[in-house]
């Protein structure tokens, strides 16, 4: 008898333990469950996050909660380490059926990005363009611009090319640059403006169009860069490029000086200090002839 009871007991306890994580669904409110889901998502425990979101989605939740749950599910499938694009697309599409502006914007952006992630570049790019057209003044459109430009600029893995990559061609580079510049002139003060300027600068550096690069770096710095480390890189680039490429020693001096002043605790501090001295010596010589150091042949 006892054995039977014991085994029943053991099975029951085992079942309770095993379902321990699942059974929490009833314990808290749906908001708590959503918070748990997003928490798990942020720690990289995607299966658990998906389970939480699914738990909310299946119940009679408020419109907001359903929105959060479906968005969560779509995001999990889209961005987890081994993505499931089919399901992501399914849930992003479901998101569009919710009747709020937010949901539709997220859905459109999400669907476009899933296309890009899957390698359907043309589809993704046209969907991103649609996002920018349909919701021109939104945060999502700003992000769409960045992803669209990224996709136009991005090199593609290509076994036949040397090194295994094919880099973006001239045409798509120009398209990307124009797109970002248009966006910046249409919505100059948007929160991602500094990021867009940095992106432009990166590309102009790649194309070795250094005057435009510095122009954009200056704009980015003016817009305000939230990440200190990135700001230090921008200041360094302005100074270095204007010294070695543009030979604009006044600008270089100003920005080396700013670097030395603001970023004493970075590894480039001493180099900046030395360069400042060098640049000052050069300007002191006045109309600095072509005596700048010839170190940039590889750049």
């Amino acid at each position, binding site marked *: 008898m*006892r054995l039977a009871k014991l085994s029943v007991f*053991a099975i029951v306890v085992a079942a309770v333990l095993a379902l321990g994580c699942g059974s929490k669904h009833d314990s808290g409110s749906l908001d708590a469950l959503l918070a748990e889901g997003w928490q*798990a998502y942020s720690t990289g425990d995607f299966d*658990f996050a998906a389970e939480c979101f699914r738990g909310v989605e299946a119940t009679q939740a408020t419109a907001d909660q359903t929105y959060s749950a479906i968005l969560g599910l779509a995001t999990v499938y889209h961005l987890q380490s081994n993505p499931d694009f089919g399901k992501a697309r399914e849930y992003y599409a479901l998101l569009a059926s919710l009747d709020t502006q937010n949901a539709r914007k997220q859905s459109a952006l999400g669907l476009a990005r899933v296309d890009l992630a899957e390698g359907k570049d043309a589809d993704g790019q046209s969907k991103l363009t649609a996002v920018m057209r349909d919701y021109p003044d939104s945060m999502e459109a700003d992000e769409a611009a960045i992803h669209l430009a990224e996709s136009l600029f991005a090199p593609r893995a290509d076994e036949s090319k040397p090194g295994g990559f094919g880099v973006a061609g001239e045409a798509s580079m120009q398209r990307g640059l124009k797109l970002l510049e248009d966006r910046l002139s249409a919505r100059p003060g948007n929160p991602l403006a500094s990021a867009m300027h940095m992106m432009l600068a990166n590309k102009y550096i790649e194309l070795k169009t250094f005057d435009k690069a510095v122009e954009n770096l200056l704009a980015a710095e003016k817009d305000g860069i939230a990440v200190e480390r990135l700001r230090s890189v921008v200041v360094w680039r302005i100074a270095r490029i204007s010294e070695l490429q543009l030979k604009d020693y006044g600008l270089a001096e100003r920005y080396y000086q700013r670097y030395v002043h603001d970023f004493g605790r970075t590894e480039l501090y001493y180099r900046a200090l030395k360069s400042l001295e060098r640049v000052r010596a050069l300007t002191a010589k006045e109309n600095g002839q072509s005596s700048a150091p010839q170190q940039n042949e590889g750049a």
Partner: protein
Amino acid sequence: MARQTVRLRQIKSHWPLYLLLLPALGLIATFMYLPAATGILHSFYRWDGDELATYIGADNFTKAFTDPTIRHAFAVVGILFVANLFKMIPSIITAVVIHRVISDKARYVYRLLFVVPMVIPGMVVLLIWKFFYNPVVGLLNSFLTATHLLDLFVKANAWLVNVHLADKAIFMADRSPAWLGDSSLVIPALIFWGFPWIGIIGVLIYLSGLEKIPKSVYECADLDGVGWFRKFVYIELPLIATQVRINLVLLIIGVLSDYGLMLVLLDSSGGPGGAAMVPGLYMYYNAFMKREAGYACAIGILLFFIILALTFINNKFVRVEK
């Protein structure tokens, strides 16, 4: 069999017997069977050891079968197992030698003396051995240098490289071998560990078997002029075969499931380059370093079945000839 049968219908008068069983069974059910059950259950989950568990079917097992580390771990354990078979020999020899000492008193004293080292706590033995293997201050390297054995190793190694039997120099002149820090020396170090490999419990068990041999058998053997070796093979060995088998079972379980040795001598990643990773340690590593507790449970279950199979084979095929 002096057991008294209690039938089901008599149970009314004998129920207190179950009360006596209760503590033992209760403990076993709670702390042995319940964890085993949840362990089996969790081996089908991706589980981080904490509350996050997702059902993934048999993925953990398919992963285990293709995981090169597990293959390596079982290879290591196989090597150690074979080595441990040989490491049983000194205990048997010692038991036989003690047994053949003529004076009763001397036999007893030897037994006592061999029991004494048992008081050294296991951890201390491990740490002392770790200390022996220390490349800078360790006893082993001092000994090898002082006796010029190391030079011999170097020459042998160089020769082996020359004739392409070995692909790299492990021992080099003027260089102290790092026994536990060199991936090609770790396994030899683990095999050599515990020299002279005398397990006192084993010796006592063999001795008790040997003592059952009647004196007359030896007398007959002496009359027939049987040499010491044949005495060992024909008289002594068969009589301790049962004990050897018991020890073999214990050895299988011990070698396959032990990893405290590696954990202390090396660390949870199995030493340099994971050279000494064994299944138990890999399980521990997965559970408490990498947080793949579900996978760890799956490894544990594999281990259990392997031990079960080996014990079964041992009972079935290593027969005791009477």
